[in-house]
């Protein structure tokens, strides 16, 4: 048996690990516009994202494969973000110079609203300051929430928290 990946001990997949697993789009694609980042490194018997994608950008050979994303087909629409049962997909938009946008799945009340200032959280639950909500949509009680964040936090912000 090979070495156990560190995310199986921590519950956190690092940006370096994502890079090594080939789950991060190349820099030039990131600059072009919003693109999905599928943080799903394990072979889970699940293929919901394949059907969720309106651009047919996600593929899988067998149900236990990890999803493969064609970055050039992906439009960053966020449908996979709301439909992934593992809440493991995010959209990152690094096309603007001084700000970035991250879309995260969210299943907590109160319902986030456009214009809200919400707390930004990283994969460890650490607070990274606040960001403004610019877009919200919902499918079957999961929200996809897009927040404006500083570009250097685009690969760090993976959740939001709305103060009650």
């Amino acid at each position, binding site marked *: 048996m090979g070495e*156990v990946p560190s*995310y*199986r*001990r*921590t*519950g*956190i*997949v690092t940006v370096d690990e994502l890079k090594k697993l080939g789950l991060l789009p190349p820099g030039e694609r990131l600059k072009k516009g919003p693109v999905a980042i599928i*943080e*799903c*490194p*394990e*072979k*889970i*018997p*699940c*293929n*919901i994202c394949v*059907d*969720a994608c309106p651009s047919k950008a996600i593929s899988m050979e*067998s*149900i*236990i494969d990890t999803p493969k994303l064609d970055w050039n087909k992906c439009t960053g629409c966020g449908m996979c973000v709301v*439909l992934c*049962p*593992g*809440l*493991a997909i995010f959209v990152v938009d690094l096309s603007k110079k001084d700000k970035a946008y991250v879309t995260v799945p969210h*299943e*907590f009340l109160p319902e986030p609203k456009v214009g809200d200032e919400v707390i930004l*959280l*990283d*994969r*460890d*639950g*650490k607070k990274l300051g606040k960001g403004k909500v610019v877009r919200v949509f919902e499918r*079957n*009680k*999961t929200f996809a929430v897009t927040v404006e964040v500083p570009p250097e936090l685009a690969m760090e912000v*993976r*959740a939001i*928290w709305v103060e009650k």
Partner: protein
Amino acid sequence: MIGKCSSCFMNVDGVPNVRTCIEPVREGIKVYRQSGLPDVPKPKEVEHVGGEEVIETDVLVIGGGPAGLEATLTAAKYGLNVVLVNEHFKLGGQLVKQTHKFFGSKELFGGLRGFQIAEHLSKKVSELPNVKVLTRTTAYGIFRDLWVGLASRDKLYRVKAKAIIVATGAQENYLAFPGNDLPGVMGAGGAQTLMNEYGILPGEEVLTVGSGNVGLIVSYQLLQAGAKVKAILEIAPTIGGWFVHAAKVRRYGIPILIQHTIKEVWGHERVEGATIVQVDERFKPIPRTEREVTCDLVLLAVGLTPDHTLLAQAGAKMAWIPELGGLVALRNRYLETTVPGVFIAGDITGIEEATTAMIEGRIAGLSAVIKVLGPIDEAVKEREKLIAFLEEYRKAPVLSRTRMGMKKALIPEIRG
């Protein structure tokens, strides 16, 4: 409190030992705590038993969870008469309290929330004229020639079936430590019953023991319900459940402490806190690593055991297979046990999850069809397809233990 154990026994309207977790509330109901041995209930307090009904049917399905519901739908689709028995007043088994979205494929309801799958399957079952559903009814014994005894609240049944599918599910495991009898220590499934079925928050500050999918998911649901989850303890050196479920709780700041376990729970008349301790690679507590955590709810998510009693009673050949959670019936690839005509599906075959339970339910349903109607081409083909799919599904590396266990439980042919 998942409709199986004695944890919620109370005296209801004079009747002792009532499982309150599956007892519907009604106008004027009187619920009392019970301690020690109860009095014999007076005749007027016991519901009138209105005699016995004898039913002859093609298929009897015992258990109305995901496996039992799929088995029922499959057998009924081929025109067989089916009797479905369920202890709870609601069909769906543990699905009724699952608020998270399920993995899988679209065809197997992946992406839907568990309770939505339960609603969908229950509705389909209720629309079938050839299915008779008996809720709040217990199968208490399997007798010679596939006669089965059932007891509902007001009636007894003797059912003679041509095939029986046992899909009774599993029970939650408990853990021995000082203070585990204090109110506020409960199985994770029990917390789900209170929270997701009945809308009662079981605690404000939570310590979860076990980082399997159940521990991770219930911790996430408690967070959604407004509780604070202090930590999730895992005795092993790696997280038990899927990474994505772990990531879901980690990003809201819930720590998962690997190589940690619970030492004791303390409090005056209810949980006020717990002492946790680090363990070495042999799971032995490391001295002087104790820490105190204040909490009012300790969730035990330390696995499940197949609910095997009915099969053992029926004389099915059983084996203790740790990878599958305990005692299970040996079975062939068509899910027939060593008692001819008795099939199994769901967690009773070995602890897995709802999607595999549904696939097994379909396989067992088809096996019952073939038993009753003979080897119909369509049914045989469909069954082979499902068996192949299940094998593929279980190929996920994380499921290697289950795969090994399933191999051990498999017998090539049924004698007799």
